[in-house]
């Protein structure tokens, strides 16, 4: 049967059914859809699936759909967290050796705001580690034993880290004077920040951001491909059977809440710095001695996007969490 007929037949099935069976069913139709009787059989099958939904039958593909929703939630929160980490590292880079450090030592308000940001970062990181650990172990186990095509994707974060370390090594050699490049000085000063140095540091940021994006996409793809909801772990001489996505949901909520707390604290901290040190805020004290306010605004924008994405993810998975 032509592809168009098969596609039309697939569309007759309810969406949750297709979410669960479409790929394998399409592969089956390619092989065995020969006669008009088979077409009628598929149409009756689609009608039956709709009736199952209408009758409210407790069918597994609805549960599967809910687990897919939970998986999407976990992936969205994970990606949002990575985005937040990138923004947080940029904020940390601006703070290093800046006039804001002495300010925070003498003024308790921005100091408290920064402490809240740091506490939020620790809580979010712990939540991601705790929630993601069973999932990470499961994904690696499956990649080694069954889904070997995932092994290549799992190497992406490792390779990204390796490339970043290489780049750091290159910068270290330049800074120590062992490598000399025209237009690049080993140590930059406020009045002497050549274009070559700016380019080199922009390259570092590019490698870091591209590595973070590639690693997040690879992890996303691997988790999407790993069709396991439950896994058994041995701990304290006991076998623990864990629904990995349900288990990760509460830590995901904690991570999302921490992101919002950090966002609010960052906005307050920025406002306090702006009112106390306006000359720093309007000056060029951002990364690579570029505009501070552009950097702070960009960091807050990324944080807002990531916090909204995490909130969307949590709401998306809430109904599934209740019913799963």
């Amino acid at each position, binding site marked *: 049967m032509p592809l168009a007929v098969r596609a039309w037949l697939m569309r007759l099935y309810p969406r949750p059914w297709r979410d669960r*069976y479409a790929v394998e069913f399409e592969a089956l139709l390619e092989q065995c859809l020969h006669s008009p009787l088979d077409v009628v059989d598929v149409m009756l099958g689609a009608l*039956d699936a709709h009736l199952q939904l209408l009758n409210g039958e407790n069918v597994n593909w609805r549960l599967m759909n809910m687990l897919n929703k939970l998986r999407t939630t976990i992936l969205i929160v994970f990606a949002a967290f990575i985005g937040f980490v990138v923004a947080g590292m940029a904020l940390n880079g601006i703070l290093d050796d800046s006039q804001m450090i002495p300010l925070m030592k003498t003024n308790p308000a921005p100091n408290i705001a920064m402490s809240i940001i740091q506490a939020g970062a620790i809580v979010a990181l712990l939540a991601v580690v705790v929630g993601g650990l069973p999932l990470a172990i499961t994904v690696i186990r499956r990649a080694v034993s069954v889904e070997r095509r995932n092994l290549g994707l799992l190497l992406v974060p490792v390779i990204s880290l390796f490339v970043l370390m290489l780049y750091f090594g290159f910068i270290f050699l330049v800074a120590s004077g062992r490598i000399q490049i025209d237009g690049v000085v080993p140590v930059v000063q406020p009045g002497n920040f050549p274009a070559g140095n700016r380019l080199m540091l922009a390259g570092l940021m590019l490698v870091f951001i591209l590595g973070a994006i590639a690693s997040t996409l690879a992890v996303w793809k691997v988790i999407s491909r790993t*069709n396991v909801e439950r896994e058994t772990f041995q701990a304290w001489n006991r076998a623990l059977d864990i629904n990995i996505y349900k288990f990760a949901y509460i830590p995901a909520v904690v991570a999302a809440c921490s992101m919002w707390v950090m966002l609010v604290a960052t906005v307050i901290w920025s406002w306090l710095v702006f009112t106390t040190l306006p000359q720093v805020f309007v000056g060029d004290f951002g990364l690579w001695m570029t505009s501070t306010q552009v950097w702070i605004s960009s960091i807050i924008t990324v944080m807002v996007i990531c916090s909204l994405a995490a909130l969307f993810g949590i709401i998306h998975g809430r109904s599934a969490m209740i019913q799963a």
Partner: protein
Amino acid sequence: MEPSEFGRFSDPALLILASLAGGEKHGYAMMEDIEATAGVHLGPGTLYGAISRLEGEGLIEALPAVERRRPYRLTPHGAAFLRQYLASLQKFVSLGYKRLEV
């Protein structure tokens, strides 16, 4: 759970369970096995209607997909269910033979 609860899919469901009792199979392999062993041609819609119900009842479980095909296997619950059904069928067959001999 009774076989009759599968409605118009009761026979296909049992055929699938019997087919998977011989080892894990994907949809097309099940169709071929059932056709070869029971002489019954299951249409794709009927096959997946039964598969979704069997999976929903926890009698079979999906394994990781191989390319686009997803194999299924019998769960311990599914094996017990099939064993129980075949035992009751055996009693019925024995009774039928006895009556024929009378």
